[in-house]
């Protein structure tokens, strides 16, 4: 069985593979699509000569030139606002917001325009654009570099939200996002940008948007997660296996549109669910998941759906971030709680 950490291409996939990190996989997705489609351009702060502060655009400017790998002024709203103009007139911009904590100035453009254009023109004007942004904690940075703001965008219709947790999905999902006809917010788990490598096909392929992945099968409880937390869920599953508890790990991969079918099927099978996310607990996406499970599976549940999430506090500065981030033991404790309900 494949897991998030070692997932490889299908055995019958004829493509050669190479071992890549998430950051390299993201870069390769952009490079392949730029190669394939001249309308694809990359823009953002430091994405060109510097290759991105996380090196996720490393080497692209040498290969595609400064007209397709565009270093912008330090202006988040302009990065998204210009992308709206470019996407509406025949280009496929892949915009980078350097850290999700800096997305606020661009929210007017994202939610005031990008998410609405297709609907408000009744399909006449569409915006095939991707907004990449590293999110989440765990790298001990200064303030404003660790946020997980997905809920803000999940309660704002019209923008797809995709979150890979491993190199294979990162490349396949980003390729799918670039080819998508609608705006896609692509959240990159910066904590695991370079934490591990996995086999990734060298050529283009897609992982479908809107499909969750059962990363690890189990019978007793379903862990539902995304991004960097998926690996922590695997650690918790391993720990619980020693206690003879069989944990299913579900990686949602896309938060909008949510793959309800896969999620509900898993929880129907196990009868228990724990949602794990880095964003603050209250009014987070975990609440929506718990509500959906309650609406559809109330009588099949053995225990209430629990949430292991960030606390409802400002993300702590480096010295205290360990207090905030969900960890293996917190997840294990929640699993035991559902088993002993």
């Amino acid at each position, binding site marked *: 069985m494949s897991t998030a950490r070692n997932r490889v291409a299908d055995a019958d996939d004829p493509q050669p593979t190479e071992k890549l990190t998430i950051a390299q996989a993201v870069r390769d997705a952009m490079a392949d699509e730029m190669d394939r489609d001249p309308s694809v*351009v990359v823009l953002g702060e430091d994405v060109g000569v510097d290759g991105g502060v996380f090196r996720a655009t490393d080497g692209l400017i040498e290969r595609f030139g400064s*007209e*397709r790998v*565009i270093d*912008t*002024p330090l*202006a988040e*709203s*302009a990065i*998204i*606002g*210009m*992308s*709206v*103009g*470019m996407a*509406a*007139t*025949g*280009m496929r911009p892949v915009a980078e917001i350097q850290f999700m904590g800096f997305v606020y*100035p661009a929210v*007017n*453009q994202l939610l*005031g*325009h990008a998410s609405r*254009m*297709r*609907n*408000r*023109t*009744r*399909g*006449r*004007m*569409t915006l095939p654009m991707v907004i990449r942004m590293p999110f989440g904690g765990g790298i001990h940075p200064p303030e404003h570099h660790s946020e997980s703001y997905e809920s803000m965008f999940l309660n704002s*219709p*019209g923008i*797809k939200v995709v979150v890979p947790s491993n190199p294979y999905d990162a490349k396949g999902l980003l390729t799918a996002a670039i080819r*998508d*006809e*609608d705006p896609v917010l692509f959240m990159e788990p910066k904590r695991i940008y370079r934490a591990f490598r996995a086999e990734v096909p060298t050529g283009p392929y897609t992982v479908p948007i*809107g499909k969750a992945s059962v990363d690890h099968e189990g019978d007793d409880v379903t862990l539902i997660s995304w991004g960097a937390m998926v690996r922590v869920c695997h650690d918790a599953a391993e720990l619980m296996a020693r206690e003879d508890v069989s944990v299913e790990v579900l990686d949602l991969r896309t938060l909008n*549109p*949510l793959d*309800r*079918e896969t999620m509900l099927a898993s929880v129907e099978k196990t009868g228990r669910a724990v949602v794990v996310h880095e964003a603050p607990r209250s009014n987070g996406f975990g609440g929506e998941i718990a509500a959906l499970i309650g609406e559809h599976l109330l009588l099949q549940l053995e225990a209430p759906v629990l949430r292991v999430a960030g606390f409802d506090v400002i993300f702590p500065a480096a010295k205290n971030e360990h207090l905030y981030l969900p960890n293996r033991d917190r997840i294990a404790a929640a699993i035991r709680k559902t088993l002993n309900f």
Partner: protein
Amino acid sequence: MPRTQIYNAVTERLEILDPAGIVDEELMPDLDGDRIRGIYSDMVRMRAMDEKALKLQRQGRMGTWPPIKGQEAIQAGVAHAMEDGDWLLPAFREHGIMLLRGVPGHLIYAYWAGDERGSSFPEGVRVFPVAVPVGSQWQHGTGVGLSLKLRGEKAVAVTLGGDGSTSEGDFHEAMNCAGVFQSNSVFVIQNNQWAISIPLHQQTAAKTLAQKAHAYGIPGIQVDGNDIFAVYSVTREALDRARNGGGPTLIEAVTYRLGDHTTADDASRYREDKEVTEWEGRDPILRLRRFLEARGLWDEEQEQEQQAAAQAWVDEQVAALEAMPPQDPSDIFSHMYADLPPHLAEQMAEVIEEVGS
């Protein structure tokens, strides 16, 4: 060491046609009589469209409408300076120029009557939908201008916005990026001197809005916005420059909002009638008519014919608006994404069960 002067900027203003209808012949753009009569007809049609919308609103047949009265010279002048492949990016007081750039009148009415189909323009019409979030459209104008430049199109993105929008951060970011990228962009501020109740001197301590261009390293010019020939000339010059790789221009066109901010506003709460009356004397349509009459290009009979034609055209637009079948209830869901996701299909079914398809 002495302090030295490192930057010294001058901002120009252009006027060609004075309120009495007299032109500076040396500055007069190359427009023949037929073309000028056509421009005049367009301005008359804009005003008729505007006045009819106000009446429809009072009758409950139109939603909130932002009048354009007094700003017709800017909208006609810019539109006539543009060429076929150029893009228009309006804010929300740009019905006149949208019309001249190919948006059907009944769709303009439909948008303000609360129907999204009013922003679904015919194929090939290079106009963005109305931008309500103030100042946000400036950014799109930079993006479209960059897109045109990168794809090698000899076309220009023309963005319009109000004086109030120059206080938004998006205005600054857009001008700054346009300067950096030398995008194929022309930005036209319709400085009508009021942003709802806030006069220009409360938006900025700067003497002009045109001078802001200096800070972005792009050309800026102020023009009498009620002077159709001056607006046409500066826009033409800016478009030629952008089209030929010379980069963006900021144009401040000084005019006056003769009407309320919208039909939901009462401007008498915050400004003096005297000011409005003064500006009514500088009406851009009257000014052009005086010019045409003085040149023998226009008479009372033609005026009557033109007014009647404009009214007939407006009546056709209203008839077309009111003949639009209602949208299908499912339409609020069908255009959210290229494909309808399952959760929206479920919600669509809920609505259809409630109200019927």
